[in-house]
């Protein structure tokens, strides 16, 4: 009687202190039946990768509003891979300029969401990334 749930780490790397968005997403994913591990503010990439490993999550959701996403995201992806978590999908939400989108996608980021993105879209994308 296997009982598999999608486990998601919602983390806020870097120094900005606005976690309303991260909490809204965490709550929405919970209501979609996922298990969300929330880490709190001001996490270093090392802390996030360590938490992702210990919790054996399927998804890492990053909330970055500081503009530092092009520094933080690649470092986190690198650490996840170094730890052997090659299957983990990374999603990013926050203030992400359009010109960074393609570079983030190239890095292997599974989805990017800016202001006004709907939580339904995020839920659908996460679920689809595990379908088939």
């Amino acid at each position, binding site marked *: *009687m*296997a*009982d*598999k*749930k999608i*486990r998601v780490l919602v983390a806020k790397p870097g120094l900005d202190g606005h976690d309303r968005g991260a909490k809204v997403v*965490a*709550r929405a*994913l*919970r*209501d*979609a*039946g*996922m*298990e*969300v*591990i*929330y*880490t*709190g503010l001001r*996490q270093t990439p*090392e*802390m996030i990768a*360590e*938490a992702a*490993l*210990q*919790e*054996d999550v399927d998804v890492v959701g990053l909330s970055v509003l500081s503009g530092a996403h092009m520094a933080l995201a690649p470092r986190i992806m690198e650490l996840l891979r170094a*730890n*052997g*978590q090659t299957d983990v999908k990374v999603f990013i939400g926050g203030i992400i300029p359009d010109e960074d989108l393609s570079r983030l996608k190239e890095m292997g980021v599974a989805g990017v969401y800016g202001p006004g993105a709907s939580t339904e879209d995020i839920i659908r994308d996460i679920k689809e990334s595990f379908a088939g």
Partner: protein
Amino acid sequence: MTTTQEILNGNRLALAKLLTKIENNAPEGQSALIELFAHTGKAHLIGVTGAPGTGKSSLVNQLALHYRKTENKKIAILAVDPSSPFTGGAVLGDRVRMRDLSGDANVYIRSMATRGSLGGLAQSTANMTQAFDAAGFDIIIIETVGAGQSEVDIAKLAHTTLVVEAPGLGDDIQAIKAGILEIADILVVNKADRPGVENTEKALKAMLELAHPTERIFRHHGSTMRTVAPAQKASASLTWIPPIKRTVSTEGTGIAELVESIAKHAEHLRISGDWAVRDRTRLQVELEALIQSSLMNRFREDVSEKKYNEVLEKISQRNLSPYEAVKLLMNGRLK
């Protein structure tokens, strides 16, 4: 290398994946546990329970920090939070209070949702602590919200159970209600810098004086059994009376004293022989739960879904009582 070998060698990714398999009740988890079982039985299991908002996670954070600083022990933390009964989802937020522990390779924090399973939760929690135990963690802290029977069951897993209270949460009537206070080996009044701490402590003291748990009652094969009755105890010094410890976990106040009490309790368990009793009781509970679930599985194999539904239909029609139905189903005399 096999999973078992990797876990024994301290591979964290292998441990992380095994914990998931155990939680998901996957067959690979079971086979790994069979191989790992011989390596268990060494860790000190500490249960931490109490009402929401009493500061359990912060306290666990401080305990782990203290153990790391003073004793160089490997610490595992299993933080259990509730799943939504409606959607099955959960937000697990205990790590927020444990950020001081990150970056230490000898601390492993795992969050776990209750997944609404009756009885099954205690089982998977027990199995996860076994995985930690085999992986060489010296101290395993299990943190649960003390809100129901399943949490009490989880606390029973532990060698030492801390019940965390905080000022201003209830009067002395709350303290004498049956439930989680009875399972306490150590009572912690956290947030002791808040007003009302004397009253909380007084209420707990009064509760202990009314009836401190000098004997433990547990169920064995469906009948209620008592462990050693007070009069039969060799000497009063073998009776453990739960101490009450004040802490302020945001500042680390009282943590050293609490750790000392935990060590004393472990020593008491070893001297009085209760360590072995508790170990045996825990394994017995586990064995009985497994027997129950495998009998249930065997029953499902023997009785087809169709037959089962036919019987259920007869019961709904009031043509058969549930008691008669059980007799029919169990004896295989069902047409």
